[in-house]
């Protein structure tokens, strides 16, 4: 048989048979699928401002770290990705190592939040949460872990209030938004974001989801669902799949004005590199980020390419800059098996070395 296909009728029949068995097993497995809700770790509300809530995670043992660690996630997805399930939880890994972990939940903005700006998110909400933690701990400064867009917010905050941030960790955080491999940046650079926000008000979550999936549409929307058949006979894998699906499609709308500012100042203006990031009338200069910085990026990140993150080294003012290169993608950095082994321990060890 000449040609690229070595498919014989027998092999074709075997694969079809395998597919059929998986489907048949799936009927039973789907009945057995248990709870695929998210959130493995208990948490208690500490502070609230509007729809934004600050939570403290409660581990099985009391934290040994003296300095609270606040996680600031992106606005575009829900923050429970850092605590998705018991065996895939960055939070759990940090708690087990003695960190005192808090997270800011941005909530689900509605039309009444359309006029929230970056100043509101960074000074009012993030700043409010940090002030609460400073007061509770009696410390001048706390540790801050910003993820993705939350990392950009954290950089802004740290530059504007360097005395309030003891150590800064950025994870998969874009800094140079104009690297050649940044697809999102390419798509937003020429669009009229004023017209966009003036027309839509808030940016609908469904539109954001669609946009993210179209970064790799064949892989994320065709291949992934065909591949679902492979795990139809594995209840645990199916639960993991469904949990991830829930996270992907559980997205908040984006407050219009904050979206407008973020696109203009970062995606279009590349403000961390070129200057021009303005938060409530104050220019952000990363030269003020003079506290120790740990920058963690993912080597196969299709949303925030590694070069976009690595640019941080060249623009921060600190002399204590570290990088952690993670072999994985934008989501794998929280949920993969390797992430559970590498990321929490790297963060903890880095913080511990600077705890004095």
């Amino acid at each position, binding site marked *: *048989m*000449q*040609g*690229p*296909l070595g*498919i014989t009728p027998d092999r074709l*029949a075997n694969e*079809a048979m395998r597919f*059929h068995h998986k489907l048949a097993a799936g*009927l039973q497995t789907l*009945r057995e699928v248990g709870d*695929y809700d998210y959130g493995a770790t208990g948490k208690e509300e500490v502070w609230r*401002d509007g729809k934004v809530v600050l939570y403290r995670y409660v581990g099985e043992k009391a934290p040994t770290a003296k300095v609270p660690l606040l996680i600031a996630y992106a606005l575009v997805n829900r923050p429970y990705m850092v605590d998705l399930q018991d065996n895939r939880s960055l939070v759990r890994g940090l708690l087990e190592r003695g960190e005192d972990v808090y997270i800011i939940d941005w909530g689900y903005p509605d039309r009444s939040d*359309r006029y929230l700006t970056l*100043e*509101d998110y960074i*000074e009012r909400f993030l700043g409010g949460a940090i002030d*609460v933690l400073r*007061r509770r701990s009696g410390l001048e400064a706390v540790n801050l872990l910003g993820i993705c867009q939350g990392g950009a917010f954290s950089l802004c905050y740290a530059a504007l209030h360097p005395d*309030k941030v003891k150590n800064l960790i950025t994870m998969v955080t874009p800094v140079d938004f104009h*690297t*050649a491999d940044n*697809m999102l940046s390419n*798509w937003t650079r020429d*669009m*009229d974001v004023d*017209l966009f926000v*003036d027309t*839509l008000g808030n940016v609908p979550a*469904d539109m954001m989801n669609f946009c993210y*999936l*179209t*970064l*790799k*549409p064949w892989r994320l*929307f*065709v*291949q992934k669902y065909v591949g*679902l058949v492979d795990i139809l006979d594995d209840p645990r894998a199916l639960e993991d799949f*469904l949990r991830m699906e829930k996270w992907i499609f559980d997205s908040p709308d984006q407050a219009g004005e904050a979206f*407008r*500012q973020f696109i203009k100042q970062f995606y279009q203006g590349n403000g961390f*590199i*070129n200057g*021009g990031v*303005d938060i*409530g*009338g104050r*220019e*952000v200069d990363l030269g003020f980020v*003079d506290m*120790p910085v740990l920058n963690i990026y993912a080597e196969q990140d299709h949303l925030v390419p590694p070069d976009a993150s690595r640019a941080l080294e060249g*623009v921060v*003012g*600190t*002399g*204590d800059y*570290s*990088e*952690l290169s993670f072999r994985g993608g934008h989501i794998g950095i929280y949920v993969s098996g390797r992430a559970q082994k590498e990321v929490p321990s790297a963060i903890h060890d880095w913080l511990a070395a600077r705890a004095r």
Partner: protein
Amino acid sequence: MLNQGFGMGAGSGQAQDFERIARQYWAAWGDALRGAAPGSGQAGAHAWQDAIDWWTRYAHGGRSGVNDALERFNSQARDWYGHMQQVAAQFAGRDHSAGDIAQAWKQALGAAGANPFPEMLRSMRGKGLGGLDQWVEDASPWLDAVRGEGMSWLRMPAFGVGREHQERQQQLAQSLLEYEEANSAYNALMLKATQQAFAIFEDRLAAHEEPGRQIDTPRALFDLWIDAAEEAYAEIALSPEFRQVYAQLVDAQMRLRAGMQQQVEQVCSTLGMPTRTEVDAAHRKIVELERALRRLRDAVEGGPMPATPAASGQGGARPPGKRASVKTAAATAKSAGDTAEAEPAGASGGAATKIASGKAALSKAASSKAGPGKSASKTAPRKSASSKSASSKPTSRKAAPRKQVKSAGPAKSGGRNKAVKRAARELAPRPSVTTRRPPTNGFTSYIPIPDAPLPPDPAPAAKRGGR
């Protein structure tokens, strides 16, 4: 918690139905493989689609998250993978070439074969997804009306009592035309991606012609197509051409939506109903009031105040400014007559503004105590040349592979660098420890309002004419 809600759990009857469908599917594939009848491959594909359809229906249950995933599985596995099975069956046990397979795949996709990318993007719908196409479909009754009436008005001069209404209609019709043109340009780019994808697919297939490298399952063939399609799409999606065409598509749809919203506003206004603009204005006032109060609180409690109140609110509407800090810092260093170096604002990678390790520049800046706000940020110090050399960075990056934690370590800060940091902190806005209390004052969030000053005249209220 077990999921008790699945329809297929209702009894064995439905499971038997599924078995029956599966038998039909097998029989059709058996015919296809034996080449028993012309078009039997097509029949096999149809049987496959029926089987997946039935299966999805059985598997549906009481949990929406599961149902949503099943629907996506149904639409993707049934169509795309079903077609690929059909292609694989055509060549099972027969001689063929890479071109034959690529051509067969194109034909198997039917009408979409000429340009499957838009078809695939259109298939991306369901709960939690809303692309541009989706809106066009949702708004089709209104858009059809615009097509029917508005187009005929396009070239008519507007005059008389209905002039403004006619102008709005004309504008809307024009927006629809522009959107359709933009959509055509976008689809043309997708066609380009399609052609590229088929070419890559064929190349990749050719690489498997050697004995021992042959593809032996329909699934592997399907994955090969996915890789080819993704590669072609990425090349287009990262191009400057796509940037322009995509922006024009989005902008055109926004203009169309805005035109329709304007019509609705007009009708609401005529009927005395509240409009979106009015509701938005109220929301805007509330948020601005909250923001003003927070700033006031920060000021009262010693926190930072914005340097330019005019920049508040819609700061994002301003174009991104030039990096004033570079010039200022450089000028500061120069005027101080010191050796402080100011690097030009640079391209990506880095070197944005490596400035001011010069002691005089720093001491001058620090001694001036510029205070919070912009004046402080303009003199932002950067890493000293002694601690990190900008010019050496790219070299070292290339020389040393990135590996795990690359740490400068806490001890890295040298004495000179420490001075830079100290100066930065002095220039930075002072910290303010604010005390937040539970919401009590009626706003969506608690915004402390400072106590009003006591009246100058402490006389009893009755004496001032009060009760």
